[in-house]
């Protein structure tokens, strides 16, 4: 993919922090983002290594067995941590671009060993960037445990877990400049951030991304612009206005949101600069008493020479393009137009805005653009994008929670 800077070197992102500091959450978010913008990225953790190790008892969750007095578990965890690092190396030696490591990194000597392993085993140029999550707010830690760990505790109690963390904290060594590493420290979920020796295009992007993360589980609503004149004629592209039916549906969607948002006016509301987007957003916005921000980034995919034609006309005039598109729908670029990859690139700033927002988000846009936005939250591979279903007159509600994303769809009659 030429538009994304294929760096000449591989990148390793290492997570550091006591348990229940959000490391796994951060790694999932980052991994999702990096894959979405086109890099081949994967996470290597104790959990992952355990799943790949057939000899281990899979009923024990070794990632959570942090009891510092249990020597057997300590050894298994060290072994798994080491295996994860080796799997990481293999991944980067082959097709991987970026690897995230979530293993044992709490002491300087752990980190030194890790650095040596990478240096020894990786036969290509690589850069390591360290991401430390620090938290001293007991409420935040408790929330974290409740949301992401509690369901996995078999006989453990929250108190036992927090006490075990306290013991681990005594040996924990925070990242220091003397270790000669480039890092970012996220303190209390973005209240304070420290960056040291930031270098390179990709790390810079990653830091910008991390600055926007927070732990609010707010809703994201994706809505297509309603029926337009082109719909009735079966044409694609263009900049048509809403049909009479389209205006009606917009009203109904507005009514749905009145119920759904319960008078909350603090909504991050975006739409495109296309007539049907603006009109839908205006009608919905009027009902809610809020105004949408219009951005060209949310305009529908540019159909180039196929703009304004019906599907039949395209099949007749450009059969070669239809074939190309079938073969590779993700990368296919309409001549003088865009591909899905171009749309992802275009829509990236909107993802930043959505991530940053701690209020509910409402996006009124168009099929191809919404496919890309949806994929960011829901898909593991961007190759799935062309097949995503974004029906008209349907509100898609996404609620990102730790490790995945809840989804519900409401068809508006």
């Amino acid at each position, binding site marked *: 993919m*030429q*538009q994304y*800077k294929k760096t000449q070197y591989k990148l390793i992102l290492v997570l550091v922090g006591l348990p229940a500091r959000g490391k796994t959450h951060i790694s999932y978010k980052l991994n999702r983002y990096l894959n979405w913008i086109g890099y081949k990225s994967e996470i290597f953790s104790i959990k992952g290594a355990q799943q790949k190790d057939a000899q281990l008892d899979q009923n024990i969750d070794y990632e959570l067995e942090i009891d510092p007095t249990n020597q057997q578990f300590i050894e298994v965890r060290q072994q798994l941590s080491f295996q994860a690092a080796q799997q990481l190396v293999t991944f980067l030696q082959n097709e991987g671009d970026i690897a995230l490591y979530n293993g044992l990194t709490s002491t300087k000597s752990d980190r030194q060993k890790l650095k040596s392993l990478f240096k020894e085993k990786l036969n290509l140029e690589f850069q390591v960037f360290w991401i430390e999550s620090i938290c001293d707010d007991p409420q935040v830690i408790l929330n974290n445990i409740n949301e992401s760990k509690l369901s996995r505790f078999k006989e453990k109690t929250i108190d036992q877990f927090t006490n075990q963390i306290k013991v681990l904290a005594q040996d924990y060594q925070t990242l220091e*400049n003397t270790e000669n590493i480039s890092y970012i420290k996220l303190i209390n979920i973005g*209240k*304070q*951030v*420290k*960056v*040291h*020796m*930031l270098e390179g*295009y990709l790390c*810079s992007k990653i*830091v*910008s991304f991390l*600055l*926007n993360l927070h732990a609010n589980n707010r809703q994201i609503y994706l809505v297509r612009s309603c029926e337009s004149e082109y719909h009735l004629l079966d044409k694609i592209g263009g*900049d048509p206005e809403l049909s009479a039916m389209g205006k009606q549906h917009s009203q109904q969607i507005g009514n749905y949101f009145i119920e759904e948002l319960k008078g909350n006016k603090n909504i991050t509301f975006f739409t495109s600069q296309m007539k049907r987007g603006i009109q839908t957003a205006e009608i919905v916005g009027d009902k809610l008493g809020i105004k949408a*921000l*219009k*951005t*060209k*980034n949310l305009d529908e995919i540019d159909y180039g020479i196929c*703009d304004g034609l019906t599907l039949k006309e395209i099949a007749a005039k450009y059969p070669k393009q239809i074939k190309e598109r079938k073969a590779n729908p993700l990368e296919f670029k309409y001549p*003088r137009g*865009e591909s899905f990859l*171009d749309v992802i*690139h275009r829509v990236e*700033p909107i993802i930043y*805005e959505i991530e*940053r927002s701690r209020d509910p988000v409402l996006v009124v846009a168009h099929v191809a653009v919404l496919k890309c936005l949806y994929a960011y939250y829901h898909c593991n591979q961007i190759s799935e994008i062309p097949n995503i279903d974004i029906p008209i007159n349907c509100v898609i509600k996404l609620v990102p929670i730790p490790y995945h994303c809840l989804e519900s769809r409401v068809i508006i009659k």
Partner: protein
Amino acid sequence: MQGCNRSQKIAICTVGLPARGKTYISRKLNRYFNWLGYKSRVFINGNYRREICGTECKSQFFDPHNEEAQKARNDCAKMALQDLIQFLQNGGDVGILDGTNITKERRHQIENDLKSQFNGIQTLWIESICNDSKVIQNNIRLTKINNPDYCNMNPEQATIDFLNRIKMYEQAYETITDDENLSYIKTMNVGADIIVHQVYGFLLSKIVSFIMNLHTYPRPIYLSRHGESQYNVDDRVGGDSDLSALGEMYAEKLADFFYSEFPTKEIKNEIIFFTSTMRRAVHTSDVVAQKLEIQPLQLKTLDEINVGICDGMTYSEIAQKFPNDFQERKINKLGYRYPRGESYLDLISRIEPVIFEIERSRQPVMIIAHQAILRCLYAYFHQNEIPEVPTLDIPLHCVIKLTPAAYFCFEKRVLINPQTGEIQQKEEFVEEFLRSKSKQKSFIDL
């Protein structure tokens, strides 16, 4: 402008000893904001002090124990803040207070004044810390010696006096601490370490990213249009035509020029080379890429302005078929959007990520693109005002080399004759700088 909440005012205040790059950061931020479409202005404490107390202030003036001088300096600082507040009240979006602000008391006072005047103002404090004496000496040499305070001294005397002035400030310096409850960014040793504290909000987040990538490396930026295209010959707009015979010749000569500009392999490998995805630019870039043995990155972001329904027409055809649009564009070339196409303002918005990339780079940058796009890029680095963008002169077969320095931008134009390869160079820097200094307004610095 898209994606911004215009209703909230923003005040940015710098903190730091002299020669720590505060004015540099203020100006860069100011440029960036104005570029994004916000009304932004810098208010320099030093300029107020110079206007009121004169420019003959020796280092003793800055002694914290010199009560009379302290009072005078406080009054000047108050005036600067007042003007900033007035600016925000009269339609300004972002006010930047460029001053040392090294005491907790001063910062507390400013923060209170701002918060009491505006409901919901966002304040951001940017502290620049530097302990590297080489960097400080360099800063002094580059920016202070030409400072009006020292126009009657020779450079050695000026440096000594300035270093004494810094010592005076050091006595009273209090770095920002968390208990002051301010939103701040601390940048240390030109970005080696950065601390961000309690910074929330769309614009403030953008500022953080921007500051993290600032540097003072004087790296050159080469801008060139593609060689003459078929559509250029026919005088048509838009399209995705290929190079004409003359255009292909230019590509060859351009490759030769760059080959001589970047003599060694190390330098060549470091070049950041961008082009668009349009045929005429890609073909020009390919010739250059082959000669230098490097690979360009094809960015759709650098594609020429989308002329919508006018694609493929000549200007006279447009005037005939769409006379209203033709007129409209003449009156407002900046904001006029081709139906189903883009306006210059859309372009400026579109290329923002590229500008960010270029700002970030510490290596030479080479961009082969198109007229409208290059007008926008050129304007940003050369510090032209946005209304000038649509009429800037970016001719075919010419390489523009920009070298942004601390407070100004060097420019060199290399006109290459595509047939003979003959080169004509035009430089513009010293005169420009002197001219801008002589018309520099005293209190505020646009």
